[in-house]
């Protein structure tokens, strides 16, 4: 379910054009079944007309800067500050799943409200990574900061 949300987010977020990137890279920090879910999705789907590569990361990985999306699992939430600093000047969408993560650098944070999956967005964190977010996505968010 989270993986499908992430896939849909890519339709509403604009990454700056880069000729060097032939692949769209999603990094996953922490052990989470979401990686398998994403793996399943990218078998049949491209993002922004690019093949999708999925990589496992930790907070010290050099590949952090190569990613277009970084998902930080709940258990690895503590690493967000370090990841945010490491990718501050890169066009990376940081997605988390723990309360309070927007104030610590996440661009999108998953929430479960009334048994339904919701997400909140930090518009400033998105734009600080040189990304553009569509108003449509902002409307669907349960909270915009």
């Amino acid at each position: 379910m989270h993986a499908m949300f992430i896939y849909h987010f890519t339709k509403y977020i604009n990454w700056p054009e880069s000729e060097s990137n032939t692949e769209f890279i999603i990094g996953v920090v922490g052990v989470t079944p979401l990686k398998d879910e994403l793996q399943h999705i990218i078998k049949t789907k491209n993002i922004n007309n690019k093949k999708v590569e999925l990589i496992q990361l930790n907070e010290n990985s050099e590949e952090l800067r190569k990613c277009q999306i970084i998902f930080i699992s709940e258990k690895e939430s503590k690493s967000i500050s370090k990841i945010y600093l490491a990718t501050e000047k890169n066009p990376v969408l940081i997605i988390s799943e723990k309360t309070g993560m927007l104030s610590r650098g996440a661009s999108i944070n998953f929430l479960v409200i009334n048994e339904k999956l919701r997400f909140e967005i930090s518009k400033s964190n998105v734009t600080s990574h040189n990304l553009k977010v569509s108003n449509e996505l902002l409307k669907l968010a349960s909270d915009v900061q």
Partner: protein
Amino acid sequence: MCNKKILKLEFRRFFVLIIACLNFPLIGYGQDSSKTNLEELSLEELLNIKVTVSSGKQDILSDAAGVVSIITSEEIRYSGARDMIDILRKVPGIDFGQDVENIIGVGMRGMWAQEGKVLLLIDGLEMHETIYSTLQFLQHYPIFNIKQIEIIRGPGSVIYGGNAELAVINIITKKGDDNKSITLNTQYGQLDGLTARKQASLSIGNSWKNGLSINIFGMINEGNLSNHYIEGNDSIMSINYKDSSKVSGNMLIGHFKFKQTELKYIFDEHSHDVSNSDFGYKHLSHIFNVKHTIKIKEKLSIIPQLFFKSQFPWNYTNASHDSIYNENYYTSRSEANLTAQYEANQVYSFLMGIRYLADHAEFYKSTSNIVFNYNGASKVDYNNFAVFTQANLKWKVFTLVPGLRFEKHNVYGAVIVPRINLTKKIGKWNLELQYNEAFRAPSILNIDLNSDIKPEKTYDKEIELSYRVNNNSIASLTLFHIDILNPIIYTSNSFIEQYENDQRTGSMGFETEYKYKSDQHNFSVNYSFYIPNQNKVDEFDVEGHSNILLAFPNHKAVVNYSIFLTKGLFINFNEIFYSSRYGYNAQDVLYAEGPVFLTGCFIGIRNLTQGLDLGIGVNDAFNEKYKFIQAYRSGNDALPGPGREFSIKCRYNLEFKK
């Protein structure tokens, strides 16, 4: 007569089947969980899917699997189900029996639940008629265009009121947002020498960027409930059901939504024969609902709604009977309610609502000056006011859901029902403890035939334990203990109907289920068991058998398995086992029905050509002829079920260009 050898063989067949099916994951494809459905959804649609936990644990199976059963559109599509009975009888705890006049009604956990005890909603709209609060399961409830069916297998009175005493069944149809297409569904069923059903439905839906969404669904059906011939003797008349179990049903469901405002309309017309009679009944309903959602600062939603239900229930199809019985009713229910939902944060959320409803009934096409007993007039009006609240407190240690409803009726007075639900999750285990009070609100005629009638009250305790084996499979066990005090009991003596509050009844037992879902496989096996709990109602009692109630078996087991053999070719196999049941016939003689195994198989091809599905199936393959037994001692022979039925289904879906 029960042949023990045959029974043994049947048992062996059944358990070999279970074991074979349980082994399939070892030999199956072993692929990842099914995301196909989710991949077809937009982000807006994904936002409406219920989840329970963070990404690490949530997938296609809900951890609330024990007490809440969810049946998805895809499960129905590939199951070969012919009608709502086929779908619901596979759910733990749900059974069917006969009411009167060829009507099939629902039972829950061993108890007869036909009159106002199990709430049936279509898109949140109550489908009961309000004269007796009955439901008629006669091929007219739609099984196509369904998004999903949510079944709360326990009381829901705090939120849903006086018809939700034992369970809530909510059929959620596809709306314009879900269904940007035209879909035609047809099915034909053939019994031995008789058409079981001829059904066609058409659904058209679409949505637009300006927030407008429309879906129209229409269905027509004609069929027969049974092809049996029962030989009479000196004291019993012969009954030829081939000529006297006709049913027909037409339904129209319209859904219009513009931004935050929704308009729903349901037209439900169905009729049925009465065996060995020259008359039948027709039931007609028009149900309207307008709903508007006002969002205040994202966290607070206020939802005002108006409902109007106009009905002609239990109207005779042969006009000559108007003068005999003078019982052609017209009823209406007007309702206004206001619900507020406040999601303070991830931990606290609250729901609060008020509801006012006005019931009206009058004699329609009456040829004499018949009046209601309650007021001596040809029209009667009642009203009801309710306040309810529920909180959802997701603390770290556990989740607590307390709720309370207060309701006051202008005749039967006030009712208060609380509930409390505690959930604790430990790793893959989920433990849920529930205490629910619930009630059955007396219907218009319950009051009219006994102005001293009081609501019956239910006290329900449940423990549910579930274990998520992995993202594909979950096992659950639910224990229940139900006490019903002052049950409202129907009695009939020389055609004089009467309702009265008896002492008490109830049941206790357990339900257990294992589910496995993946891209190729959809497998479930469940088992339900009940025994009576201090039943003092003679009408439900089986003389000489204190461990069982009329009509419903102590044991029910279901195996349901769908497999995609290739991308398009699928096959479903289902088996339902009912242990012995008891009933009283028209001569008030006790009889036993031996164990029954209902075996069904459906094979189909998805996307034979673009958008076209075809399937053929057989139900009750071994022609066991399940009988629908009257669940209260009131002088009706069992209604013989249809027996072996061959069916063919065709679905064509044409998607609109995006």
